Structure formats: structure tokens, C-alpha cells
């Protein structure tokens, strides 16, 4: 289990590390790394591999919004029933149950403002359990999943020092 956690700590931010390199970094056998990753994929500990993209740089004009959703928990299933329904919409990127003044934090991607507005008014707000929503459109992205979006500075250390 310790090896698996070590692997996850490495690939959490660098999904493309090869098993061979991970093995070198951890002082383990490559075969053990391959096996551990396969097991974690089968056990759904690793669900998939995403890419962190600065869409602005390639001129894409999609829109993202974070939506605060207040819901009425249901008998027997609590918050899970409605959360699972919201998850099914393909526009929805992530859903978290959170503490505080609202219940679900939902991140939605769309082509433009209208598309997200339509999703909220037609699909999300109309669910029986949903009491209210507050939509926050993302205006600018500074940091995602530990990656800062501004260009990194070059190595400014002295080329050779004692």
C-alpha cells in the first residue's frame, strides 16, 4: 500500500511519468510499478488521466461556471440521489457536497454563457430536490490542479557556482 501511495503522489501531477522512471525515482522494480498501477486502475483508485490545458492560449472560447446548489435531501438516499442525477449531465465536470451555506458545488462547462444559462434554468433548477442555485462564471484562470497559468520564469541561477 505504501508503494501505491508513493506512486500516486508522483503521478498525481505528472501523469506521463513512465513506469521505468517511476521505478528509478522510488528505487523499485519497473514490474512492480506496472502491476501497482494496473491494480489501482482496476480498483478504480485511478479513474483516469486528465490533461491540464490553458485553452486561452489556443484561442478556445468555452465558458466554465461554478454553481452553488441548495437541495432538499431525500429520505434514505440523503444528498446522494440528487447528486448522482446531476452527475449524469454531460455538461457537468465535477460535483462536490460541501459544508457551508449551500450543499452542492457543481462545475459546468459550456460553449458560451447562453448554453450554461440554459443548462441551469432548464435542467438543474427544474429538478424537484433543487431549492435554489447561484451561478458564478469563471472570468480568468490563475491556477488549476497545482499548475500556475502564467509562464514560468527561466532558471536564473548562476550557471556554475561552488
Amino acid at each position: 500500500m505504501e508503494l501505491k501511495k508513493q506512486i500516486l503522489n508522483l503521478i498525481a501531477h505528472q501523469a506521463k511519468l513512465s513506469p521505468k522512471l517511476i521505478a528509478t525515482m522510488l528505487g523499485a522494480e519497473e514490474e512492480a510499478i506496472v502491476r501497482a498501477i494496473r491494480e489501482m486502475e482496476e480498483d478504480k483508485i485511478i479513474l483516469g488521466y486528465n490533461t491540464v490545458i490553458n485553452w486561452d492560449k489556443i484561442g478556445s472560447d468555452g465558458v466554465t461556471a461554478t454553481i452553488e446548489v441548495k437541495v432538499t435531501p431525500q429520505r434514505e438516499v440523503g444528498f446522494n440521489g440528487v447528486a448522482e442525477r446531476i452527475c449524469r449531465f454531460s455538461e457537468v465536470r465535477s460535483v462536490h457536497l460541501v459544508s457551508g451555506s449551500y450543499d452542492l458545488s457543481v462545475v459546468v462547462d459550456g460553449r458560451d454563457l447562453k448554453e450554461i444559462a440554459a443548462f441551469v434554468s432548464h435542467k438543474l433548477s427544474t429538478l424537484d430536490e433543487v431549492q435554489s442555485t447561484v451561478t458564478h462564471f469563471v472570468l480568468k484562470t490563475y491556477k488549476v490542479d497545482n499548475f500556475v497559468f502564467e509562464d514560468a520564469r527561466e532558471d536564473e541561477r548562476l550557471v556554475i557556482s561552488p
Partner: protein
Amino acid sequence: MSSMEKYISSVVKSVPPSGIRKFFDLASQMQGVISLGVGEPDFVTPWHIREACFHALEKGYTMYTSNHGLIELREEIALYQKHKIGVCYSPEDEILVTIGVSEAIDLALRALVEPGDEVLVPDPSFVCYAPGAVLAYGKAVPVKTFNRDQYRLKPEELEKCITPRSKILILSYPSNPTGAIMHKEDLMALVDIIIKNDLIVIADEIYSELTYNGSHVSIASLPGMRDRTVLLNGFSKAFAMTGWRIGYACGHPDIISAMKKIHQYSIMCASIMGQKAAIEALRNGENEMKKMVESYNYRRRIMLAGFDDIGMSCFEPKGAFYCFPSIRCTGMSSEEFCERLLEEEKVAVVPGNAFGACGEGHIRCCYASSVSNIEEAISRMGNFLNRHRKA
């Protein structure tokens, strides 16, 4: 312009110019150089430490501090050393905050060396000890260390170098440039010789947090050695704070007081902003520091595996962030190897002989660099070796 050479002190003139200056000049003029020649972390100081400095400035901490350094910092240093090496120092009169360990080395040498005294310096080791001894009117005596011993300082080599004028032994482990460490038993083997010959040890432990197989052991923690040891440490390597220039010395009050006398007339005090940041580093910096050490360890293994792949022989360094591979298979001197590697493959490394005669036949490669840089540099070195390997 007429020469002013005749005005320069003969002692200063007797110190040879730095062996790495030439490579610095060569490498910094070239484009597209990958450098494994740096001697500092590739991390920026953790944000919370930088923020402590901003806060200090906002609060108006811009004045002198006590010559010894801020008492809060000295208290934190005392706690830290007690926790790390198990030795207690009084914050009142046994700790002195300096401008990096470099100043502390100079102070210790100047406070202790009488003209003609001999300072025993591991060979190879960091570049400032021997010149520091000479500038203090002493004589530097190299104590040979060898690849076959993983560059640990062996008692028999130390004994060979001792004369009636021997006064100080420098111990700088984990070692720059070799990455060597001294285990407890290695240090124990030196203690009798040190005590029998009435030596004082200057222990430069700046890389103490950067060990990869068990914790650092300080000679100050061994029986009979506390008062004989001037313990030097600082923030540059463990907390990625090289540019802040904050170090310190711990030791017997008589020695610290003598060092303080020089410090108060030449330096006055370390900058208060740096000292405030150092307090934050000691109070809350452990987690970030551990992450950095873990990251060095990954890259240490990558570099070692890379050298193995290209057939470059290197003992496993257990400390600091350097590998010290042998280049004997090329038949070149370290300097020739480094110059040609730079010209032909645009990879900068430091010739081993810059750190002492025993470093000849080796190069220092720093793995505080990105994984892609390390891999590219090693691949280029592989090409170089393929062209120049002799049998």
C-alpha cells in the same frame, strides 16, 4: 593603466584564483547550455517564508539586531539543533547568527588560527576552507579522501597529516562536491585522534537535512566533542534560501564570543528581514523542506541510473545534491573533460580538481535540476563518452 599589484597584500596574492571561474566564464557566454554545475537548490524559497519577510518589512523591522542575531531566532536554532542532533546550546552565549555559513567559516578560522597553525581540510571539499585558512594566516593541509572509501574521511589518512602545528579539523559532511556522508562509526573513529591531538573541529553541516539513507549525525553529539566543535549550519540548502545569506555558529561560549568580536566589527549583524524569514523557516518549514528533500532523492536516483546506463562509474552519494562520477575511462583530466564536454555537447559540469587534488579524475554533477534537464544532460554525456572512451 599602471599596475597596482605591488600594493596587494602578499597573503591575498598567495591565494590561487577560483578553479571554477574559468568554466563560469565559458559556460555563461554560450547559448543552449544545460548546466549541472549549479551549487544551489532549484526551488524558490517556500512562499510562507517569503511572506514572513514581507510581514516583517510591513511592520517596520528594518533596524539592526543584536550582534548575536535576534534572540527569537537563536532560541529557534537551539530547539532545532536539540531536536536534530541532540545537542543543547544556550541561545544567550553559544549561538551566533552570521551572513551565511561562509561568514561563519571565516569567523571561526580567524578566531582560532594563530599564524602558522595548520588547518586540516578534507580533499576534495568545498572551495572556501583552504583559502579561508590562508587568509587567517594559517596553513591548509589537505587530508586525502578516496572514491574507494566513498570519500569518507578515514582515521589513518587524518593521522598521516597531523603535526605539532595541527590545530583545526574541518569536517564538511554531507559533502559538497562528493555527496559523501559520515556515519556515526566513521565519526567515532576520528574522535580519539581529535582529542589526543587537541584539535578543534569546525563542522560545516549546511547539507545536514539533505541525507537519503538515515539521518545526519553531528560530531558535536559524540562524547567529549561538544566543546571541541564549532557547529556551523544555515538555511540555504535545507530551506532553499541561498540568496538570503543567513547562517549560524554554535559552540563553546569562549569561541562564540571570539567569533562575535570579529563579526561585530566587520559585519555588525545579519539582515533583520532574513533573520525574520529564518525564524519562520524553523517554526513552520519542516513539511516543505521534507518535500524538497524527497524530490532531490528522486532525482538523485534518476541521475545515478542514468550514469549507470551510459557506463559512467559513480559511487552512490547519500547526501547533499551532487554526484561525483569518475571520468577516468576517457583518460582526460577533469578540466579537459569539462571544457570539451561544454564545447562539444553544451553540458556544464564542474571539474573535480576545483575542490582539491583528490577530486582529479572526477566531475561534480548537481541533480538540483529538472528531470528533463538531467535526462538530456546524461544523454549528451553518453554521446560524449561514446566518442572519447578509451577501451
